[in-house]
């Protein structure tokens, strides 16, 4: 008797859980769904009903919406190219040098190690945007504004990531492996590249995703440093869609947004498992 009551309660509980979860899932998808659908509708259709199913002539409208861009100086391909260069290079740099720095702290005994370690912990808390004015002045003085490299090279020093990598090494690297590599005559540099780096693959993979997404989505710094049209990154190009020139071209706004979202969603579908588990890996180390 009591047991069935308990069972009933847990069934009710479970139903509530499912309803809430499905609702939140819907909330995650709905804005993008509306966006993709409206990208295939004409502006006049959208003005009549902003929410609907796919239009009767999706491809004709798509072409029409696309045509608007050719008259409006909207160049997602430039944004893609620049964002791709910046994100790829800065991610590679930040991963390699963070791992190297973490390894130098973990594997060697040196005098200033404690100082560096303390610095990393302290600076981790300082948000990058605080340094923005000084950074801009410095870059301006040496005439390096509008250079993509100014958004790439600073990635070498990423205290947050060094911290993660260090935590990971604490748990996964035993120095006896390093010792035996030394006995086999491997140089220190080779030991790091061929033995330690492969060991760190799980940590590197997850941090790679975060670094890439973070760099790809960054608007603040590029907006300040890159004023040349040919150097704009995707978020800057996207932010132009807000401007007055598109005020009445709803179909094109939705299409422009879709173009920037679609690649991210495709990549996410393939990597989502790693991302969700990867955050987990990063999280436990935090």
């Amino acid at each position, binding site marked *: 008797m009591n047991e069935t009551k308990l069972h009933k309660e*847990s069934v009710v509980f479970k139903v509530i859980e499912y309803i809430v*979860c499905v609702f*939140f*899932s819907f909330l*995650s998808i709905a*804005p993008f769904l*509306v*966006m993709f659908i409206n990208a295939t509708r004409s502006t006049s259709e959208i003005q009549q009903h*902003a*929410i609907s199913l796919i239009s009767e002539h999706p491809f004709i409208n798509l072409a029409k919406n696309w045509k608007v861009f050719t008259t409006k100086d909207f160049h997602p391909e430039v944004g893609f190219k620049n964002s791709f260069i910046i994100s790829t290079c800065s991610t590679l740099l930040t991963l390699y*040098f963070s791992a*190297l720095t973490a*390894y*130098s*702290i973990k*594997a*060697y*005994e*040196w005098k200033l190690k404690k100082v560096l370690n303390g*610095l990393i912990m302290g*600076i981790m*808390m300082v*948000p990058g*945007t*605080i*340094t*923005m*004015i*000084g*950074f*801009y*002045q*410095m870059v*301006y003085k040496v005439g390096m504004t509008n250079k993509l490299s100014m958004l790439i090279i*600073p990635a*070498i*020093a990423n*205290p947050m990531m060094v911290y993660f990598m260090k935590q990971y090494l604490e748990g996964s690297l035993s120095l006896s492996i390093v010792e035996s590599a030394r006995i086999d005559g491997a140089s220190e540099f080779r030991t*790091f590249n061929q033995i330690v780096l492969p060991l760190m693959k799980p940590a590197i993979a997850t941090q790679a995703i975060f670094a890439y997404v973070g760099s790809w*989505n960054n*608007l*603040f710094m590029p907006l*300040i440093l890159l004023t040349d049209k040919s150097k704009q990154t995707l*978020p*800057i190009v*996207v*932010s132009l869609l*807000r401007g007055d020139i598109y005020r009445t071209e709803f179909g094109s*706004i*939705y299409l422009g*947004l879709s173009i920037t*979202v679609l690649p*991210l969603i495709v990549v996410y579908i393939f990597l989502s498992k790693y*991302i*969700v588990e990867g*955050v*987990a890996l990063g*999280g*436990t180390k*935090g």
Partner: protein
Amino acid sequence: MNNKKLVSYSKYGYIFAIPFVIAFLIFTLYPIVYTFIIGFTDLKGAGNTELHFLTNDIFKNFVDVLTAKSFHTAITNTVRIWIVNFIPQLGFALLFTAWFTDRRTKLKGQGIFKILFYLPNIITAATIGILFNALFGYPKGPINDIIQFFGASEPYPFITKQSWVRGIIAFIQFWMWYGYTMVNLIAGVIGINPEIFEAAELDGASKSQTFFLVTIPCIRPIMVYVLITSLIGGLNMFDIPQVFISTDCNNAGLTTNMYIRNQAFAGSYIYCRAAAASVIMFIIILILCLLLLYFMRDKDEAKLAKIRRQERKAAAARV
């Protein structure tokens, strides 16, 4: 012998850390110091890089910022938006963590839910800001369509009403970040030794008792991490309000980072005031982080450390 080995390899420690240190000095430390210095100069004007220190009133920029009405607006907006987004964010993240890690009722399809909840976090914030601006469009937009379908007689101008603008920005922040917080908290729970839960179950603890008395205390370090990163991120909010707010309601969604950028680059080029505002934000963030760390510290451990210190003192006194 062993010692000698350590010494002979120690130079590699320096060599491997050098790229980081150099990049750090040039691209992080120097700009920080430089920003502080600019705060005490009268640097303004596009392209101007010459520093003149203020002589009679060295804190002029700081006073200017602290007495500026738009800075007050920016700071109240930023804090308000952060709090309104963070409380439900942490609340729902904890709720989903409790559900998804519950050992007794295994929820089917968790994987899909987690992936969908996390999805908004990977999309470019600028895109999302513009998308929501379009969704809340006035007089014609999907949201206005919906409220009219449900009986509203007229479309509502969401994007020009100040409190709605702040509310929507807070909602977007919540929507983008609860999944991230949840996944982090779940990771923390997975890291807990399962024997602790088994013991709680054997002792007859209910679901909610287990969660509040076992799980939450165990994931305290991760909670600290989530709180600190969210605090820093929240007080640096820029992308969403920057692209979301329309020109009709200038200051409703003005955040401190937007204020800093406006001072430095949008027309007036008052670098010195922007630098002073940066320094003020830095100090505010630092104080809040320290307070947070203090309140979230492990009280038992702190007590233990205190007792140990006293014991040591007592022992020293005896000697």
